[in-house]
Each structure stands twice: as structure tokens, then as C-alpha cells.
């Protein structure tokens, strides 16, 4: 059960970040040329691999309770921020995340930027892709390493991320357009719920608490977070309706 949660959480969280990175890479490639854009992607991937190689082994030597406490706290803070935005979007208090609009804005900005070539590569296109892939990729690396090391299986977490990479990159290459049809807001809600659930579970264990039923309690925590989030969306929707009435 926990292994399934681990792969699914890693897959969903990675897919959301990769869709955002793909939007930037596509805008850069279409506006500034694919050579510069893909060189930026390659350079970012090299930096990310170096980060994994440096941080991965270091995490495995930290005592598991200390790791669970720190990782649980970080995931909980991450998860609650995601969940807050997702609840605000679902209840109509915040605009829905629109990959088409972001793509159009990135494309326009990239087209109007000055062209400066270095070693045959357009600098703007390179930096745009590099930054996009590096920043979104850092979040994927963080999720894979923390989820994986805390549950004792980095390969399983990496499997979820790899599946997301294959899916997002495959669809991106096939359609060469932003993945606007991906229900990103729903996925972000699901990721917020997953991160919050793991964060609550691990931070409690890391702080010395014991869960009744051990790992099986994860399902109860998940149900509690889903029910609480749904309740908050309902409350906020009612409030939005009352405010406009």
C-alpha cells in the first residue's frame, strides 16, 4: 500500500512540475529555435544529475527519525501551500492555472527579446529553457529524494518520476503544444493532498509520536485530509456565493 502511494505521489508531483517545464521549453523552442532550447534542457539535466549524485548518498546516512522529522515538516509546509492554492482555485477565489495563457505570454516575451548568439547558441533561448527545467526539476529531485529516502526506496520514487517524464515528454514531442488538456488544477489538488498526508505522517513519527496501526494509518490520514479539504472547498464556495448575492 505504502509503495503504491509512494510511486503515485512521486508520479503526480513530478508530472505537474514537468508540464510547467515543458510549457517553458516549448515557448523557448518555438520562439528562439530548438537548438538553443534543447541545449538549455541538456545543461539543466546535467546540473540536476549532479545534485542527485551529491545529495542522494548523503541523505541515506542521516538517522531515519531526524530525516522523517525534517522531510515531514518540509513536505507538510509544501503540501499545505499547494492545498491552499488548490482550494482557493476550486472555490473560485483564485484564477485557474491556465497553461495556454502562460504559454502565450512566455512565447510573446521570448519573441520580442533581443537576439545574442554565443557559440552558435541563442543565449536567451538557452537561459529560458535552462532556468525552467532547472527550477521545476529541482522540485522533482527534492520530491524523489525525500519521498524515496524516508520510505527507504529511492528507486520506487524515481520510478514514479521516470514514468511522468516519459508521459509528459512523449506527449510534448507528439503535439508540440502546451498540455492544456491535462487537468492540472485537479492534479495540483491531488499532489497537495498527498504531500500533506505524507508530511503529517512523517513529522508525527519523526517527533516521537506513534501511529495506531503503524503504516496502515496513512490511509486514515489521507481520508482525513481529503475530507477536510472538501469541507473547506464547500465552506469557501458558500462564502463566495454569499459574497456575490
Amino acid at each position, binding site marked *: 500500500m505504502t509503495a503504491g502511494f509512494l510511486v503515485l505521489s512521486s508520479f503526480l508531483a513530478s508530472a505537474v512540475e514537468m508540464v510547467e517545464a515543458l510549457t517553458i521549453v516549448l515557448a523557448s523552442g518555438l520562439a528562439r529555435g530548438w537548438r538553443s532550447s534543447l541545449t538549455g534542457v541538456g545543461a539543466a539535466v546535467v546540473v540536476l544529475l549532479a545534485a542527485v549524485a551529491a545529495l542522494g548518498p548523503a541523505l541515506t546516512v542521516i538517522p531515519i527519525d531526524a530525516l522523517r522529522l525534517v522531510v515531514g515538516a518540509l513536505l*507538510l*509546509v509544501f503540501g*499545505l501551500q499547494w492545498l*491552499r492554492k488548490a*482550494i482557493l482555485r476550486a472555490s473560485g477565489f483564485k484564477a485557474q492555472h491556465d497553461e495556454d495563457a502562460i504559454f502565450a505570454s512566455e512565447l510573446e516575451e521570448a519573441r520580442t527579446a533581443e537576439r545574442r548568439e554565443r557559440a552558435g547558441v541563442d543565449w536567451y533561448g538557452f537561459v529560458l529553457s535552462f532556468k525552467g527545467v532547472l527550477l521545476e526539476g529541482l522540485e522533482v529531485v527534492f520530491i524523489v529524494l525525500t519521498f524515496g529516502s524516508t520510505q527507504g526506496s529511492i528507486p520506487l520514487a524515481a520510478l514514479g518520476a521516470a514514468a511522468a517524464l516519459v508521459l509528459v515528454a512523449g506527449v510534448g514531442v507528439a503535439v508540440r503544444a502546451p498540455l492544456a488538456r491535462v487537468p492540472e488544477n485537479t492534479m495540483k489538488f491531488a499532489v497537495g493532498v498527498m504531500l500533506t498526508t505524507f508530511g*503529517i505522517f512523517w513529522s*508525527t513519527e519523526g*517527533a516521537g509520536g506513534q501511529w495506531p496501526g503503524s503504516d496502515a494509518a496513512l490511509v486514515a490520514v489521507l481520508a482525513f*485530509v481529503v475530507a477536510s479539504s472538501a469541507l473547506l472547498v464547500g465552506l469557501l464556495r458558500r462564502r463566495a456565493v454569499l459574497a456575490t448575492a
Partner: protein
Amino acid sequence: MSRIASIGRFWWDFVVGDDWRVAAGIAVAIGATAALAAGGVSVWWLMPLAAVLVLYVSLRRSIAA
């Protein structure tokens, strides 16, 4: 802005996000859990309740703003 300040800003945004009260609330809840657990109290219920309370307070602040 200096390079160090911009790196600090990046990590602050990356870890804490746009409402520092969420991080502060979670830190307090973890401290309380650790203190109660050290005293032999069964505290598994504290973090779930604290997380939902922190989320509710943050949502109310967002809407009010």
C-alpha cells in the same frame, strides 16, 4: 540585490512559500508533538488537527486580503 540575497530569497520562496505563518504554525505543532510524546502522551491526533487548523487560518487570511 546581491547574489547572496537573491539565493536566500529563492530558498525562502522554495521552502516557506507566500505565507510564512503556515511554516511557523507547523513548527509550533511539531514542537508540541515532540514535547507531549517525550512525556509519554499519545499524540498521533495532534498533527492532523494542527495541519487543518493552519490551512483554515491561512485560507481566511488569503480571502480577507
